[in-house]
């Protein structure tokens, strides 16, 4: 079977998917731009930079000829591109602490219960700070597996790495994440105790 040549195969529409054909950039964008944006934030891109990098990801996806059904999961495939784009971007170092707060406000309505918002905000901050202790590769694997529910097989296929490497990354990521999360919880508890003592 002839291997489909990326980008050059003009027989495949760049904006649709035929039977067995590639899913083009704009169809991919409509279906998965939100996922890519959320993934980029979770691996450390500042919210202000997400839109630009999302565009970069889909330009690269277009240059690759779009997603070819049967070659894994489109989300994993896009995540692999996003990881490469992010890894070359200095923006990945620029994530701001206040991002976690704005993220939460997007999640809850203005009328949401204040306590729940505060709890949610603390939870997201702990998760993000724990994620920030991981290497970019481990972080991407963790986000795809733990938050996105992708299988290790799909991740390995998309990242073109052996399944054993995927398990290893996930193992390392979990170990560090759990340690960091426990530390952050202890810190939060200490702050709460201090505030309680003052009042």
């Amino acid at each position, binding site marked *: 079977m002839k291997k489909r040549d990326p*980008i*050059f195969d003009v027989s495949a529409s760049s904006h649709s998917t035929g039977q067995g054909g590639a899913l083009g950039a*704009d169809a991919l964008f409509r279906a998965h731009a939100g996922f890519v944006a959320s993934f980029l934030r979770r691996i450390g891109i500042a919210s202000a930079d997400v839109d630009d990098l999302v565009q*970069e990801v889909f330009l*690269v996806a277009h*240059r690759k000829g779009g997603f070819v059904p049967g070659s894994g999961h489109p989300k994993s495939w896009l995540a692999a591109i996003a990881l490469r784009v992010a890894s070359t971007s200095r923006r990945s170092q620029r994530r701001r602490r206040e991002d976690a707060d704005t993220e939460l406000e997007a999640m809850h309505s203005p009328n949401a219960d204040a306590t729940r918002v505060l709890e949610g905000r603390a939870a997201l901050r702990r998760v993000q700070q724990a994620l920030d202790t991981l290497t970019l590769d481990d972080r991407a694997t963790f986000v795809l597996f733990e938050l996105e529910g992708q*299988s290790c097989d799909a991740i390995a296929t998309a990242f073109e790495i052996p399944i054993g490497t995927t398990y290893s990354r996930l193992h390392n990521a979990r170990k560090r994440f759990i340690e960091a999360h426990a530390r952050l919880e202890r810190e939060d508890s200490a702050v709460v105790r201090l505030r309680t003592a003052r009042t």
Partner: protein
Amino acid sequence: MHEGPRRLVDDPAVSSSLRDDLARAGEEHRAYAAAYDAASKGAGLQAALMSQGGGAAGMGLLAKVALGVTAAAVFMFAGAALHARLQGRSEPARSGAVNAPAAAPAPVGPVATPSAQRPQDIVRHAPDAPDAPPVQAPATPPRAAQHDDTPHEVRQLARIRAYLQSGDATRALELAERGQRELGESALWQEREALAVLALFELDRAEQAEQRSAVLLARFPSSPFRAELEHRLRRAHEQ
């Protein structure tokens, strides 16, 4: 069937507070994705990729700027990465390499790599090129690649592809050759040339297509377009 590891959020051995936090993060992750306004934010991308005729005339200024910046970043990075890879394969090297991270990952897609050689030179030296007649080369000397051209090149390539997809190979060829004349040794020379060759095949000008294809592949032996070009050549010979 092999069962993979259990997610932390489903693992009772993990602390409930961690599972709660992860559940909230997962909920937020999905909510953000669902709320992302792909329809409006994709306008710039769509205009660039799908532009026909009027090109990106319908794009807003911000979209144009964003596209320009992002496309330039993508192509600069990918070009630099491929350049590094090609150097290790003794392919023609480009002059004036783009700065790139020391540990730049492999390019994620086929990328044209500008060469220090001009197409005319290649015609004379390419081992696969026929002795005569000479392969058509740009009428005017190509100017040096400019990174500012990249967004324009992206849009132009999208138009060439659109013409090919719509069956208008004549206009596709005209536009590709105009690009070669105007942009010369630019970042996407190889892709433009490959599309020109494809247009020639579509116009049943197989002999010219074969000549230019030979030049292209002599210049870039590991071109990502090799498989497609060779496939089209075989088809042309069969007919």
